[in-house]
Structure formats: structure tokens, C-alpha cells
């Protein structure tokens, strides 16, 4: 399902073979198509540009009448003021710690489970797979009341683990992993087994080395998902500012106390999306593949 690689162009774009005069029309259509593509792209990119522009603009410029599409006076104040007032770097670190921990746990669990679903025979396999997949469809708000209690009873409340463990119960990676492992020939595993390797050993030294693209996709998706996560941290970390993640701090502290200072809000928002944007630029292919396969938002 890779889509970024060059693909065979459909006939619509093939060289014209019609009656005389058509090549010219084709050419004009080609230009029209390019212009529309550029326009659509510009519209889609504009909000991000506006975020950037706002983050580096002075307050009086933002709240002055009239529309300016480029910065009037450049400033870092939108970053420094909220950073002085709120523990923004602590939020950043919390987000990072949570996202890394959740990524590590989910990817390991999901690779193991996906392998089991792809390569072992056992009773109730299909039912179990469907049940696990369907837990993916439950929004946290449907189960937040008991989930909160369980986290509290386990003594996780007031700790980053209160986010890490429940959010590690994500199963979207199982689907990806199973799909990938189905493509690894059984003969390969069988051969390693005949050589006397145990199941875990086969998985570790025969299967995993072949699964690097799968691991890359899973890690990136899990990290992105957790870095962007908001609902559950909002419920379970709400009471303690020192435990906030970036999205939580943005909404609970910055937005409610700076309601009219969008320069500061956009600056810290920019800070919060930068890691994902960097990862996206570096590993675009994996993101597209993973998102296209899981349909994860």
C-alpha cells in the first residue's frame, strides 16, 4: 500500500493519441492541473504558516486592525514569556518520557502478539484477534471512570506511570505486525526450529532481523500517537501541573490563562509540534505507510 513511490500514470495522463488539436488541449489541462495542485497545497499549508507567523510576531501587530501576511516585527517574546511563567520544559520532558516509554512497551507487546497471530495455530485465534482489534475502537471517554479507578487502585495516580501503563494497552500495532509476519515464509521458521532453536530464539534472531521496516513504522506511529495524546492525560494528570504533557499544558494552563495572547499559545504549540514535524520530514515514507495501513488518525 505504499503510495509515495512513483506509480504508473493512468491513461488520463498518457500522451494524447486522439484527433488533431488534442495535444494542445491536453497540455492546457496539464497546466490547469498543476495550478490546482499548487493552489490546494497552498491552502493546506497556510494554517501552519499562520502558526509560524503568529509565533514570531509582536502582540501589537497581531491585535492591530488590518491583514498582514508577513511578519512586521520579529520577536522571541512569545516563547520566552510563557516559558518563564510555566514549566514548559518540564511538560516537554514529560511528553518525551511518556511517549518513549509507551512506544517501547507497545511495540514490544504488539510485535510479539502479531507474530503469535500470524505464525501459531491455537483455538479461538480469530475471535481473540477480533476482540483485540475492537478494543481499538473504544474511545477513552467511554471507559474513563473505571480506568481512572484502576489506575488509582494500582497506586499510579500522581505519577507518569498513570499515563504510561494504560496507554500502552494500544493494539493498533498488532494488525500491522500480523500482516507483516504473514509474509515471512513458514519454511524459514521451520528450518530454524529443526536446527533446535526455541520459539523466542527464532523470533529474535531469524524473524526480527527481517522486520526492520515493520519496527520502524510501528515505532514512529506509536511515538506520534502518544506524543499527540490528550484525552487520558487530561483525565489522570489534571491535578498536577508538574506532570503535564505538552498538549495538556497548552490547553489547561496557556489557553485558560492567556486566552487573548495567541502569540504565546501559537509559539508553544509550534514547540509542541516540532518533534513530530522533524520526524515526518525525515521518515515520511514510514508515516504514510503506517497511517495508510492502520487508518490511525
Amino acid at each position, binding site marked *: 500500500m505504499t503510495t509515495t513511490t512513483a506509480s504508473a500514470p493512468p491513461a488520463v495522463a498518457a500522451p494524447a493519441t486522439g484527433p488533431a488539436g488534442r495535444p494542445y488541449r491536453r497540455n492546457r489541462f496539464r497546466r490547469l492541473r498543476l495550478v490546482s495542485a499548487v493552489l490546494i497545497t497552498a491552502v493546506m*499549508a497556510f494554517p501552519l504558516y499562520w502558526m509560524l507567523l503568529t509565533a514570531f510576531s509582536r502582540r501589537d501587530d497581531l491585535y492591530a486592525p488590518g491583514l498582514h501576511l508577513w511578519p512586521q516585527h520579529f520577536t522571541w517574546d512569545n516563547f520566552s514569556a510563557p516559558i518563564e511563567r510555566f514549566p514548559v520544559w518540564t511538560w516537554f520532558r514529560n511528553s518525551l518520557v511518556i511517549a518513549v516509554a509507551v512506544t517501547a*512497551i507497545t511495540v514490544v507487546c504488539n510485535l*510479539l502478539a502479531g507474530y503469535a497471530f500470524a505464525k501459531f495455530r491455537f483455538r479461538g485465534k480469530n475471535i481473540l484477534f*477480533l476482540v483485540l482489534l475492537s478494543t481499538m475502537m473504544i474511545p477513552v471517554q*467511554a471507559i474513563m471512570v473505571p480506568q481512572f479507578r484502576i489506575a488509582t487502585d494500582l497506586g499510579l495516580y500522581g505519577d507518569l506511570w498513570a499515563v504510561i501503563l494504560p496507554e500502552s*494497552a494500544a493494539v493498533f500495532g498488532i494488525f500491522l505486525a500480523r500482516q507483516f509476519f504473514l509474509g515471512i515464509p*513458514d519454511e524459514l521458521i521451520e528450518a530454524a526450529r529443526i536446527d533446535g532453536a526455541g520459539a523466542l530464539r527464532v523470533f529474535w534472531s531469524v524473524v526480527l532481523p527481517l522486520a526492520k521496516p515493520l519496527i520502524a513504522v510501528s515505532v514512529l506511529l506509536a511515538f506520534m500517537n502518544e506524543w499527540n495524546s490528550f*484525552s487520558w492525560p487530561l483525565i489522570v494528570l489534571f491535578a498536577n501541573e508538574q506532570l503535564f504533557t505538552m498538549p495538556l499544558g497548552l490547553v489547561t494552563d496557556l489557553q485558560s490563562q492567556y486566552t487573548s495572547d495567541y502569540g504565546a499559545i501559537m509559539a508553544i504549540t509550534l514547540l509542541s509540534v516540532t518533534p513530530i514535524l522533524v520526524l515526518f520530514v525525515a521518515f515520511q515514507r514510514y508515516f504514510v505507510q503506517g497511517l495508510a495501513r492502520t487508518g490511525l488518525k
Partner: protein
Amino acid sequence: MPAAAGLAAAPAPRRRARRSIGDALTAGGFLLPNLVLSGVFLVLPLILTVVISFQKLDSLGPAQWLGVNNFLDLFRDPTFYETLWNTVVFTVCTVPLGMAVGLGIALLLNTVMPLRTLWRAVIFVPLVLSSVSVGLLGAWMFDQYNGFVNKFLAVLGIDGPDWQSNGTWAMVSVILMTLWQRIGLDMIIYLAGLQGVDPAVLEAAEVDGASSWRRFRSIVFPLLGPSTFFLLIMNLLFSFQVFDTVYAMTAGGPNFSTTTLVVYAYQQGFSDHGPGQLGYAAAIGVVIFAVSLLLTAGQWRLSTTRDEVG
């Protein structure tokens, strides 16, 4: 599934029986970490949600058995119907529109043109951003006094709407930001689906004199069926469960005009201004779960068809 043909000939019956027990045990070991986590943090809470929905439970004091009273209250609660209606409006506006626009862009960017992959990547970017940042950006761009949208409309000589104080316009703004974020997903899935359309078939149809609309309607769109179905289910789920974007952008306001069902559940249970009615919130949770399950049934059918395809 008689795999492992060739090299490993079929093992003797007894060995196979032993093997399959061993297989089951090993599979259990591989599945254990996942089952523990999802059991404790997904399945158990799900069961308990149903239990709590029959209780009177607030942030203080012990639980009290209520029977179906939470649900009776819910079905008499006008705000419940208002939020349900908002959810339906939001879903009906975002899903078909997003898919149609995504399909249009996919068709456009499936043709040969310079820098095609760059255009695709840029359109895809909003999808990787957090919905919270999309909501905050939306709140700023649609700010009725200083936001970009109204300033831009003013340049055109139009008096922009009150995005914050008018409920209908607030809903429109949330829908627009959601579309901005989601079109990339629709585009990418349709682009993937378009790889399965054989150019030779289209060429043949063109030679036979089929117009481009006709070719789209009778060849391309039917071939995109699986992609459309997948997107429909996913989009319905996303829209039905929207929370982050709304919460960051409007917090459900003004009044309840952008409060969706999921946001309402949160407000009832946990919002610091809300009443902290955990039992009632759980009852809303049960409704959310019931609807999600209906949509998931679609996903189940889908996952089996996807396996056949891929």
C-alpha cells in the same frame, strides 16, 4: 491453512497433536504481555463501565445501586439529545465532505505532474499534528475579532461571522479545522486504492469513447470500493468520537452548541466545572460504546475482506 508444504513434509499425526499443544502454549506466552495490558486497562474497565452505569457514584462517597435510573435520566436529559444531535451534525458534515475532497485531490495528484510527491506530503502534514494543536490553531484563526479568517473576509468587504458567540458558526469552524486535518488521510488511502486501477482498462474505455466522467463513474469509483468502505468506517468512528479538537478549540461552547457526546461524557464525569457524576458519565459511556460497537461490526467485516485482499 496447510502451509509449510515442500521442505517440511506433513509430520506424523501424534507429533502434530503434540506440536499444536506446544504451539498454543508458546502463542500464549507471546500474547501474554498484550493480554495483561489490554485486559487490565481496556476490557476490565469496559465491563466495570456497564456496572457503574447502574450506580449513583460521584467523586465523594460510596456507590449506590440505582438500577436503570441513570439511563432513564439520560433519555430525559435534553442536553443529551442536544449533544447527540451535535455529534450527528458533525459526523454528517465531516465524513462525506472529507472523503469527497480527499478523493478529488487523490485523482488530481495521481496524474503526472512536477513535484507531485511534495504536494502530497504537504497535504498530508496536518494528519501528523496533534488534534489539540489543530484545535488551538483553529481557535486563533477563527477568532472573531483578530483571527485570520475574519480579517481576510474584511479585506474582501465581508463582515465575518461571530465564530465564538454564534453556536452554528462555531460548529462550522470546528468542522472546517477537522476537515483540514483529515483530508490527508482520505487522500492517501484513495491514492493507494488508485494503484489498483489498471491504466490499460481506462485506455480501452477511452478508445471506446467513454468520457472522463463516465470512466470515473463506471470504472475507477467501483474499483475504489474497498478504500471507500475502509475510509467510511474509520471516518465515522473518528467523527463520532471527536474530542481533542473540540475541547481545545471551543471547549464545547458557546453553551452546548459544539458539545459532542464524548465531550459531554467528559464534562459530566471529570470537568472541574462539571458535577462529577461518575455513574451518569459511565451511562453516557455505555451509549458511546454501543454506537462504536455498531461501527466496529463494520470494521470486523472489513478486516476479513482486507485479509483476502492483502
